[in-house]
């Protein structure tokens, strides 16, 4: 980003190629519709381009990029009349209350037979559907961890919440995903 800030257009292409899929999927899973995701995706990148002159290295580029995306998402939800913070409906609690029995023991793929690959593909599609069905804050934590490659602290900084809160949200998200996938095994 610093190279692009000094006028190196090729540096932006490298940066864009590295984060285009991750950012797009984050937005797609968060808003749920491809048309909205594309609009938001374009807005986010245009904001990045417009903010290049004032860019300062205060955090990782991914943290900065996903913070822009999150703010744009919040604007989108506000304009759409959707609550930005959905209630967790009892999913958020103490760590001791985590339903560990809901963990899914996904079988390791020892032999990649065609039937096994087909099964895994079907399972992946079910996982994506389960991700989209997560509560918003859990989905956000999960996507920032998976697509943004962020640590707990980075997710906490991006979402403006505490580290332990992020940790709890992630645990509940994983537990729910495992539970959803267990039915399809």
């Amino acid at each position: 980003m610093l190279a692009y800030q000094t006028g190196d257009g090729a540096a932006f292409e490298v940066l864009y190629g590295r984060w285009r899929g991750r950012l797009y999927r984050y937005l797609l899973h968060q808003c749920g519709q491809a048309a909205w995701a594309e609009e938001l995706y374009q807005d986010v990148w245009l904001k990045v381009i417009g903010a290049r002159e004032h860019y300062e290295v205060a955090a990782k580029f991914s943290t900065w990029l996903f913070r822009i995306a999150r703010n744009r998402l919040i604007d989108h939800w506000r304009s759409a009349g959707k609550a930005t913070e959905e209630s967790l409906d009892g999913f958020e609690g103490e760590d001791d209350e985590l339903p560990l029995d809901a963990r899914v023991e996904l079988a390791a793929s020892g032999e990649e037979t065609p039937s096994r690959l087909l099964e895994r593909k079907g399972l992946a599609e079910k996982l994506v559907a389960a991700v989209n069905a997560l509560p918003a804050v859990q989905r956000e934590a999960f996507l920032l961890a998976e697509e943004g490659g962020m640590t707990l602290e980075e997710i906490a900084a991006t979402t403006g919440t505490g580290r332990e809160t992020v940790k709890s949200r992630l645990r509940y998200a994983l537990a729910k995903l495992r539970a959803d996938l267990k039915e399809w095994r």
Partner: protein
Amino acid sequence: MSENDLSRELPRDAELSALYRAAAEALPPPALDRSILAAAQAAVKPVTPAVRRSRPWWLRFAAPMGVFATLILTVTVVMLVEREQQDLLPRGAQGDDAPAAASAPVQNVEPEQKKEKAAAEPMPQRLQAPAATSAAAPEAAAPAVAGSVAPPPAERRSAAGAAADAAMSRDEAKASAPALAAPAPSAQPAASSGELSSRPAAAPPAPLLERAAPMSKSMERAARGSVNSSADQAQRSPEAWLAEIRRLRTEGREAEAREQLERFRQTYPDFVMPADLR
């Protein structure tokens, strides 16, 4: 993933992550990629780093600042010129008023002195008194002249110098004129009465007379015309004026002498006239 990992570090499930990665195939449309990349290139093309470095932000305001500075300079010069003109105009106006203002204190101070000394002193000495006081009285009696526009001492001196120069040029013109070749006798009594030191303009030195000889006719007419102007009369000292009147009488120009005498009386109503002019 162990229980400890779940409690200490980022909660993660390797199998879930792998499965998610396998499913995460969604990508933005190529058209969107192109438009974003085009926007990024367009953003860096117009302003190259070299241009940005060589053109600081304040240079963008160079043209308006230049216009503003020119405007300020123009207004300042115009104001200075106007102020200079205003300074010159009052000085020119004061040149006419200064002798009258300077003589006014003399008129205020003189009556008491004159009433006491008029009978006892001889005429030349009485004539000398206004001349002596006319130089010193303005500073002493200036506060007594209410509403007068008397200039500061330096300006008064310059005004007096201008009056002296005017009188000098007038005398030079007269000395150069053939018909007016006899002003010397009128100057001699003044010199003999000891007024020469207090009236340097009344008796021009000989080199000035010699320099005035080649004066043109037009300048002579201008000089002669200025004799009758009220401004010059006001600039003259009473003694010089009386000497001029005597000279006119000596030359047989009685009408002019009477006219000058009448003006003198109007200008200096309290002045004790010499016996030969009463």
